[in-house]
């Protein structure tokens, strides 16, 4: 029978009935006497010899021993094992740039163990080795605050996951993954406290010095607890597409100047491009003018129909939409390093509040702006705290909730009670 014991130490209680049975058998061993008239006794009851020998123990004692055995087994907490032989863990890997920083001590000195990611993966491997049966793994990753549920089945981390994603993510969004058989691999606790069901492998690590911001050709770094401004940063560019509304293109140029970016005429695809602001193209011509807006501004412009999104690039997020003939049309979509506008000229501001328009669009462009190489937000360079490893909960962790667990215990307990009662009755009757 495929049984496991929730409280194996409870089985020590079985010693009591065993000792009682041994003592009883020792005491209950009948006197052995020679007799010439055995033949006369043999015909009395017609029972087999074995049956009569078993009855050497008084019935009350046999029942009492049975009750103690049932009780001892119940104390052990037997339950049926889950039929699955091998579990599958869903490993969610944090791929923020901070995971690719060198692992350091609390003093900010390199620990010599490689990146935080390497430390985390080694801890994961150790955790897997510690399991009785090595679980199968399915891998997903978090990119730019979102979890891509790839669920790639692989014993090792997929090579595609070893590429740093964009900075920044919403830490609270990890909580959606707080499930049994799920394991988070990161540098620090995303939600501040350990998840209830999911396991964690946190690499930890001390602060990592380095640039945290860039403006034009200047870098701002934190070194030895002090801010240091350095020059020599290569120039970066903003690409402005030709089909953009004139008013928007003018604002973008002002914003680029403020951020120390040059304007590029062509999309070279090089790393020096910090942001691409592109216009949607449509072969079917422009649609009628619609009114749209957000963040306190409102404008009207002819819309451009957007075709199917490509699956190769990360799926863009919609910043601004309009409802056309009962359907939602994306007007402004973005992802890190890329903003697409699906409306054209004539673009007219109907709100009369240029400040609201500027703040709203500057916020979008700032979010889409790629960081300069080597630049990470201050939060990602801070100490990740101590390393922590904890296996994920099993779905049947709670014995009370485990299917088939307590019915066995209840049966044994009930049996013990009935046998005890019967033992008392048998004792009384003799």
């Amino acid at each position: 029978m495929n049984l496991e014991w929730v409280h194996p130490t409870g089985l020590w209680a079985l010693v009591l009935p065993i000792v009682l049975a041994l003592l009883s058998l020792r005491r209950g061993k009948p006197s052995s006497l020679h007799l010439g008239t055995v033949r006369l006794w043999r015909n009395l009851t017609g029972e087999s010899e074995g049956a009569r020998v078993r009855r050497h123990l008084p019935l009350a004692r046999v029942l009492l021993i049975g009750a103690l055995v049932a009780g001892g087994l119940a104390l052990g907490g037997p339950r049926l094992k889950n039929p699955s032989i091998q579990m599958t863990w869903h490993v969610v890997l944090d791929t923020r740039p901070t995971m690719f920083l060198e692992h350091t001590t609390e003093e900010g000195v390199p620990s010599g163990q490689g990146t935080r990611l390497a430390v985390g993966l080694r801890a994961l491997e150790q955790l897997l080795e510690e399991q009785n049966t090595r679980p199968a793994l399915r891998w997903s990753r978090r990119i730019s605050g979102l979890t891509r549920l790839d669920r790639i089945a692989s014993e090792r981390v997929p090579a595609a996951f070893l590429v740093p994603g964009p900075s920044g993510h919403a830490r609270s969004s990890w909580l959606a993954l707080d499930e049994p058989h799920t394991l988070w691999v990161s540098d620090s606790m995303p939600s501040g406290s350990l998840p209830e069901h999911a396991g964690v492998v946190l690499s930890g690590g001390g602060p990592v010095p380095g640039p945290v911001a860039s403006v034009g050709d200047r870098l701002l770094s934190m070194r030895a607890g002090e801010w240091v401004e350095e020059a020599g940063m290569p120039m970066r560019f903003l690409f402005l597409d030709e089909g953009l509304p004139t008013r928007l293109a003018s604002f973008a140029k002002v914003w680029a100047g403020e951020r120390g970016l040059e304007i590029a005429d062509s999309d070279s695809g090089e790393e020096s491009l910090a942001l691409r602001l592109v216009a949607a193209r449509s072969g079917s011509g422009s649609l009628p003018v619609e009114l749209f807006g957000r963040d306190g501004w409102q404008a009207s412009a002819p819309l451009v129909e957007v075709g199917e999104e490509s699956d190769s690039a990360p799926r863009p997020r919609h910043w601004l939409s309009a409802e056309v003939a009962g359907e939602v049309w994306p007007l402004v979509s973005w992802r890190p390093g890329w903003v697409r506008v699906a409306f054209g000229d004539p673009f007219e501001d109907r709100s009369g509040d240029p400040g609201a328009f500027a703040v709203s669009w500057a916020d979008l462009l700032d979010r889409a702006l790629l960081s300069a190489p080597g630049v990470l937000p201050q939060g990602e360079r801070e100490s990740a705290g101590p390393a922590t490893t904890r296996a994920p909960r099993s779905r049947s962790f709670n014995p009370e909730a485990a299917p088939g667990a307590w019915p066995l215990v209840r049966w044994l307990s009930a049996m013990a009670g009935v046998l005890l009662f019967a033992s008392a009755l048998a004792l009384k009757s003799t």
Partner: protein
Amino acid sequence: MPDHPNSGSQRKGAAARQAGELPCPTVVLGSEYLKRLERLSLRFAAGLERREGAGRAGLLGSGEEFVNSRPYRPGEDLRQLDWDLLARLDRPYIRVSRREAAESWSLWIDTSASMGVGPPGKLQMAAEVAGGIAAAGMQVGARIELVAGTRRFQARKLSDIGQLVEFLQNLCAEGSEGLATAVEESRPPSQVGRLFLIGDLLDLEHKQALHWRRPGRELFWIQILAPLELRPEGRGRSHLEGSTSQVGEWVEWVDPEGGERLSVRLDGSNLAAYESNLERQLETWQSMAARHGVSHGLFSSDSPFESAVRATLEP
């Protein structure tokens, strides 16, 4: 005379080893027994004088009734010659009277392992009773033959009593061959007038027990059972363990001959059923004895041997 006078102690030791856990496999006849035997012998001698003075044959039979014939031995009284047989067979035969037949006694003692049950041991009681009967027989001038398994002893004179006791002392309860085997394989001399079967008779069929019955021969069944066999719930066990057994207690009976072990509970119903079985068996022996003119006596091995001897020889 004993057949194997020097092998007695060896046989005894071997039997004790074989019997292993048999409680009473051997016989011990001390000086006290010899004194009691002498008193018993004198008592029979006095009784004989009284009966002969009164003109009764008593223990010796009627005297003039011819019951058998036997080959003539040189020196015998020719007046007893059977002239008819001489004429027909051309060989001399002596006519044996009841008196003469009665003066040849044969005592067959069961020495199978079941006789080692006790205490007191059944074989011990059988030996004591056999000694008493033999002494009484010698007192009246009978020829005595003792047979125990393959061993035989013959005596006629009272002076042989010491050897007779020694023969009895060397008996051991062993093996599974009892009186039933003796009946199947042996045969007492034809002139034996009194034949005593001494044992528990548990292995003996009634037909076998009657096998040696002859005209002019008296047959005696002396049945000896241990207190444990007669009263398993009471004094039987108290003799063994010095305490009374409790009703409801379990006990394992061991068959001394087959080795079979049987665990039973000494509760009321089992004891009643056993006693009923035993009573039925004993009643059958008694009725068979009465029907065929056999003298039958049942004795507990804890009873004095004198009472068994008197009950047998003084009907």
